[in-house]
């Protein structure tokens, strides 16, 4: 008796939920992985704007990018796609090629193309159609430093890696860890791309954008790996496997002098109650003052069929591309809006510094997600991570292997 009653109850609940879906006219099922503080607050800005305009928001949050991605792919393959997917830029064209994404309507596409960085838009378009809406542009080439540490050695934060090596010896004498670092493959790769960019902006573009195999294995690449090798002497023994936010915490607690990390690191400093410009500050990563290393969050839109989902998808696109929504979102998320025509005067000094660089199209430099597939990027991570932890591997050998990865993929 008890059993059948609870069964009836369950059926009643389920049918109520089932009936709720089709009843509303505009529904968006959004699959994303933004579950941490600043990120979920950012997602809430979109959700609230969507609801205000009369939509029903289904929040399909999956913790962690890899899990979210696995969930998205199996839902698409299983015929039950979400109506929007928080994705990496490298996936968009591959998904579009598979025919599982629905393109933006011409008006939205025109608005996006007109106001967002051209290189960015070219990477989310295919055969003249736009398949994704970027919602923010992060900058990956930042140095976050402890003002106390550099005050103690009487030097400004290093403008080049050569300066860093001079400073690092002094910092070590004063008891600081010169470079806060976590030895996880993605962090190692992040540092690697930053060093590559410091060797030369044009060299960086030649390798990653033009896929120049010769440059990818040439003397400049050898120099990149050599600099990286030198850096291994200036991290602490606790670094292998350390998370990036634990590394940031070393700078926060003045144990380490600086960390090279994207603008998302700022959230850790803010959460720790530190003041920008007083306790910590931002400088562009050594040798990358002329570049804006772009990291992009975007939504793409798997093809849906139910009428209310199709309508919901259109409404969601209008929301995501709205300048007012973008500014509100940027304030919470801590990165720049993807639209270049919005007012950023309310944002902090680091973001404004970044916005000035971003205005120069030559300075816009893509990160690996624009150019490498997940598979290729995985090979780069394997290589860089192996190089970092294996002192027996020479820079020349590493450069040769890197050019193989670049070459293999251009086939």
């Amino acid at each position, binding site marked *: 008796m008890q059993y059948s009653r609870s069964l009836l109850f369950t059926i009643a609940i389920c049918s109520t939920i089932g009936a709720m879906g089709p009843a509303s006219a505009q529904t968006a099922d959004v699959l994303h992985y933004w579950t941490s503080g600043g990120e979920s607050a950012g997602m809430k800005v979109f959700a609230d704007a969507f609801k205000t305009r009369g939509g029903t928001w289904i929040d399909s949050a999956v913790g962690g990018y*890899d899990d979210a*991605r*696995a969930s998205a*792919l199996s839902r698409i*393959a299983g015929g039950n796609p979400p109506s929007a997917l928080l994705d990496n830029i490298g*996936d968009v064209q*591959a*998904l579009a090629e*598979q025919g599982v994404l629905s393109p933006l309507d011409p008006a939205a596409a025109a608005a996006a193309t007109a106001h967002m960085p051209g290189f960015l838009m070219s990477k989310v378009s295919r055969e003249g159609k736009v398949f994704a809406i970027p919602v923010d542009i992060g900058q990956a080439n930042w140095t976050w430093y402890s003002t106390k540490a550099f005050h103690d050695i009487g030097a400004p934060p290093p403008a080049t890696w050569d300066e860093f090596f001079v400073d690092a010896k002094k910092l070590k004498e004063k008891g600081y860890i010169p470079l806060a670092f976590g*030895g*996880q*493959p993605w962090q190692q790769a992040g540092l690697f791309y930053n060093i590559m960019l410091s060797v030369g902006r044009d060299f960086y573009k030649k390798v990653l954008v033009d896929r120049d195999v010769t440059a990818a294995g040439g003397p400049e690449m050898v120099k990149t790996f050599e600099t990286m090798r030198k850096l291994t002497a200036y991290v*602490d*023994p*606790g*670094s*292998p*496997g350390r998370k990036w936010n634990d590394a940031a915490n070393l700078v926060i607690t003045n144990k380490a002098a600086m960390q090279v990390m994207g603008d998302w690191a700022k959230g850790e400093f803010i959460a720790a109650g530190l003041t920008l410009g007083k306790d910590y500050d931002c400088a562009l990563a050594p040798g990358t003052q002329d570049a804006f290393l772009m990291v992009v969050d975007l939504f793409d839109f798997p093809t849906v069929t139910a009428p209310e989902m199709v309508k919901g998808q259109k409404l969601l696109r209008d929301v995501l591309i709205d300048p007012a929504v973008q500014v509100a979102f940027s304030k919470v998320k801590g990165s720049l809006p993807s639209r270049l025509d919005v007012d950023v005067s309310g944002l902090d000094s680091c973001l404004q510094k970044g916005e000035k660089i971003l205005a120069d199209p030559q300075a816009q430099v893509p990160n690996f997600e624009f150019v490498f*597939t*997940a*598979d290729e*990027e*995985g090979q780069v991570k*394997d290589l860089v*991570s*192996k*190089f*970092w*932890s*294996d002192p027996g591997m020479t820079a020349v050998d590493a450069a040769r292997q890197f050019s193989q990865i670049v070459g293999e993929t251009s086939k």
Partner: protein
Amino acid sequence: MRRHKTAEFVIVPTIAVVFICFYAPIIWTIFISFTRSGMFPSYSFSGLMQYWRLVGTERWHTAFLNMFVFGVLFVGFALILGFLLAVALDQRIRFEGFFRTVLLYPLSMSFIVTGLAWQWLLNPAMGLQHLVREAGWDNFLFDWIIRPDRAIYTIVLAAVWHSSGLVMAIILAGLRGVDRDIWRATQVEGIPRWRTYLSIILPLLRPVVLTCVVLLIINVVRSYDLVVAMTNGGPGNATDVPGKFVIDMAFERANIGQASAAAVIMLLTVIAAVMPYFYLETRRTGR
């Protein structure tokens, strides 16, 4: 006849489930390993391409070799330690129940928890090394977990810690089942105890030990969670294992073809390892 029908009725769904849930995916995986499948499965045949690439991938070499290093050391040490513990507990000591619980306790923890705990213990900046140095031995060095050439041994250490209690419990049960008369006979003959354990009891416990070996080997082949929690395959990819390689390829790197090829090699390895055992067992029982 009736009974026969019942038997069929019971067995057919089981066979169906086994086929749909086990063999069909295996066959599908083998098929996919011969294609260029990336993010989604594709069904255009591309020969041995995925296998050639796998053979040329240094990370796979490391992972594959690690499975054997880890397997031999883990099974060996867990067996020896488990057997010694069981023998020690078999000496009619006081508080046996207490010790048995304590020694079996690690098993109640998942590999994830085990891995995290050992990761913290072995971290040179805040674990054991740090503690001993704080206590005054400034030169104490135990940083294996961050050394690419030693890290795999720390995984063995954690796994042995986790599983030797299980071996102990199973062997202890076996020891308790040994006929008392054997002990009396060896006492009358004046055979030393260690000799009795080694030459008489151990051979008697052969099936029990085999059970332990099988249980431990299963842990070796499916080793994934312990590595992920403890080192996540690092430093570099020094502690990578085939299971982690396959998962990384399939999900993080959206390369189903490569993941399938690696999985097929894993399957072949297991078959190669298990076949001699099955052969011996079936021949011994004459079936």
